[in-house]
């Protein structure tokens, strides 16, 4: 507990000064601070990348696919004057986040680049922990699939650069069920026999927010709009919640999903007892190592009743440059290298991650290694970011706790829709 405290005495002294300076904001006590990062946040200097040299460190989660090991090695080969090192700072996303926060709070210069989950940038940017990457994003934006670039956008500025993306897919057992065009079709087909059921992630955690928003976005609904207004208390939310709850009640989705995260879902599906699975692309390779190898189809997430275009929620990882980096020039060079169309092909080919460059998806070599690349691209292009806010963790809790309550039958769709909006507003009112 003590380790996570952001304010040492020095910072207190500073904030007292700041308090006096912006006294107007605070005397009322109800006064809300400006909703944007301090204008003091520095932007990257593109010129610093020219002729950059020396060492940089990239800090992130466990490098299970080997993508960071490959990228750092290839970077050094292409730029012999620079050396990039990848340091694993957590085995789970939660742990990685804690470790990242601790380093940034302590103004540590250990890491030049932090690997950021797509939901983290606004929160960290608000603390002045990240360099503003708008100049570099403006320069390389045409390499990127627009939806992926959006995940780094907050308050009109880019705080990160996407490295690889992620989007949900539907896996279906060829011999039992058809590839779905709509969620309604999927649920109807799944309800026909216990062996046809759908498994997804509905434990009370971040993954449930993603699973719910995928349906909500496809139904044309939204949680929070671009202006930060809460839009979740809507007929679309009620319809989707009711649909999901009914799906569990009538056996379209197995009740066990209430206890599933990604891995539990994957393991359950690998038993062969189910028809459909909603999961991320990494499951493809693992599923092909089981008895189900070659017996399943992959499709992009379907639309909701054909009402609106099929949509989903973007995952993936972005590069953020630490405000305390001692070599942001080399960090920029690294980011530039990792997002080139050429290297993005390797991201897919060698490490089965979803590229942020569109051309990579139609590359013959990529298609050979990742035959479902067209489906993945469709999912990625249709997907939208989760709400971009410095209080995102609280917003997500407001969503997944209330969705879980509906699925477990302890709240109605109507109650939950109202409560979600209320809870998100409370979160937004955080000091």
């Amino acid at each position: 507990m003590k380790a996570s405290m952001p304010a040492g005495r020095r910072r207190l002294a500073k904030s007292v000064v700041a308090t006096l300076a912006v006294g107007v904001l605070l005397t009322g006590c109800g006064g809300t601070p400006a909703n944007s990062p301090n204008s003091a946040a520095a932007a990257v200097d593109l010129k610093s990348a020219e002729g950059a040299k020396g060492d940089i460190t990239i800090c992130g989660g466990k490098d299970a696919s080997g993508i960071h090991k490959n990228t750092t090695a290839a970077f050094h080969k292409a730029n012999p004057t620079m050396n990039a090192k990848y340091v694993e700072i957590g085995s789970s996303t939660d742990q990685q986040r804690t470790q990242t926060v601790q380093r940034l709070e302590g103004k540590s210069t250990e890491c030049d680049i932090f690997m950021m989950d797509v939901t983290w940038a606004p929160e960290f940017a608000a603390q002045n922990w990240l360099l503003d990457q708008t100049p570099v994003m403006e320069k390389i934006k045409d390499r990127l699939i627009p939806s992926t670039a959006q995940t780094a956008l907050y308050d009109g500025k880019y705080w990160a650069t996407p490295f690889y993306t992620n989007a949900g897919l539907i896996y279906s057992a060829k011999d039992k069920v058809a590839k779905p065009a709509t969620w309604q079709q999927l649920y109807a087909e799944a309800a026909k026999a216990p062996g046809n059921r759908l498994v997804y992630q509905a434990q009370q955690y971040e993954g449930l927010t993603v699973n719910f928003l995928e349906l909500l976005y496809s139904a044309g609904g939204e949680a929070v709009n671009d202006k930060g207004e809460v839009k979740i208390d809507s007929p679309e939310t009620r319809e989707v919640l009711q649909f999901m709850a009914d799906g569990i009640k009538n056996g379209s989705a197995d009740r066990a999903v209430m206890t599933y995260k990604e891995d539990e879902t994957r393991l359950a599906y690998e038993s062969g007892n189910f028809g459909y699975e909603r999961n991320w692309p990494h499951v493809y390779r693992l599923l092909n190592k089981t008895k189900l190898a070659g017996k399943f189809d992959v499709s992009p997430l379907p639309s909701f009743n054909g009402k609106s275009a099929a949509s989903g929620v973007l995952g993936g990882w972005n590069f953020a440059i630490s405000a305390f980096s001692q070599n942001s020039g080399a960090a920029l060079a690294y980011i530039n290298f990792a997002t080139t169309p050429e290297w993005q092909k390797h991201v897919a080919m060698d490490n089965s991650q979803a590229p942020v460059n569109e051309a990579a998806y139609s590359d013959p070599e990529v298609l050979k290694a990742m035959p479902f690349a067209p489906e993945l691209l469709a999912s990625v292009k249709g997907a939208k970011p989760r709400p971009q806010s410095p209080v995102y963790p609280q917003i997500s809790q407001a969503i997944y706790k209330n969705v879980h309550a509906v699925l477990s039958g302890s709240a109605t769709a109507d109650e939950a829709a109202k409560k979600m909006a209320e809870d998100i507003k409370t979160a937004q009112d955080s000091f």
Partner: protein
Amino acid sequence: MTSAQKLAERPRTFGYDRAERRLAVRMVAPSLILMFLVAAVPIGYAVWLSLHQFSVRQAGLSRFVGLDNYLDALSSGAWWSAFGQTFTFAAASVSLELVLGTAMALLLNMTFRGRGLLRTLVLLPYAILTVVSAITWQTMFEPTLGLVTTVLRGLGLPGGDIVWLGESGYAMAVIVLADVWKTAPFVALLVLAGLQVIPDEVYEAAELDGSTKWTTFINITLPLLKPAIVLAAIFRTMDALRVFDLPFVLTRGANGTESMSMLAYTELRENRLVGEGSALSILTFLTVMAVSVIYIRFAGGNIRAAAQEKQ
């Protein structure tokens, strides 16, 4: 200690001279300073934090809010539901642990072959990390592939189709079960130590007087075991009220299993609301303190009385 006892002891303290007293103070000082550094300072710091709010939206901004964080917590449904759920868990798990632990201790106190081995084996669950055992229980109660559900289904017993960790009530039951499995042996160990200091003569006398096994247990064993059982109850209750890892791994606080510590964790770690989270930690701390004070006040007398009787 009654005032009469204090008076009785006083003449003895007159015997010490000042120098000796000063020496005593100096000898106690290092541990007092250490206690101050490791206990009082962090608690004081947490209290100081809990009186402030630190902005999650603008760098370096903080404000003094007095008791607002506490008032907000105490007027929120989340705190009181976590409070109720934590006490439900504590009451269920501690009472089961005491009954089972005492029964295990009585068995282990008998003379039979392989007793040494069994005493070691019984302690095994306590040696396993809670997080590891939580993951094991989660796997066992997995709805399609789990050992428990599969066996129940195979035997045609009820419960095979229940999504144990996905339903209120059942989820709490699994968490209580996991806790009892792990810590009943700990209670057994404490009670066993209590059993072994009961002199054999007392039992022999009871036997001579024609007491049955049951009345011996009720009238002799249990009263003499009371200090050990109370001690175990205090330890276990304090632990149970701070429960975090079991619900965190098994349910993430869903289905009526969010504990006070989990609530504080979410605010502090996930939401980085340092002031609000510290207030929740202090509230949890005060709750646990209050419960232990009550225990010591009402049951603690028994420990002292028993200790004096033995003397």
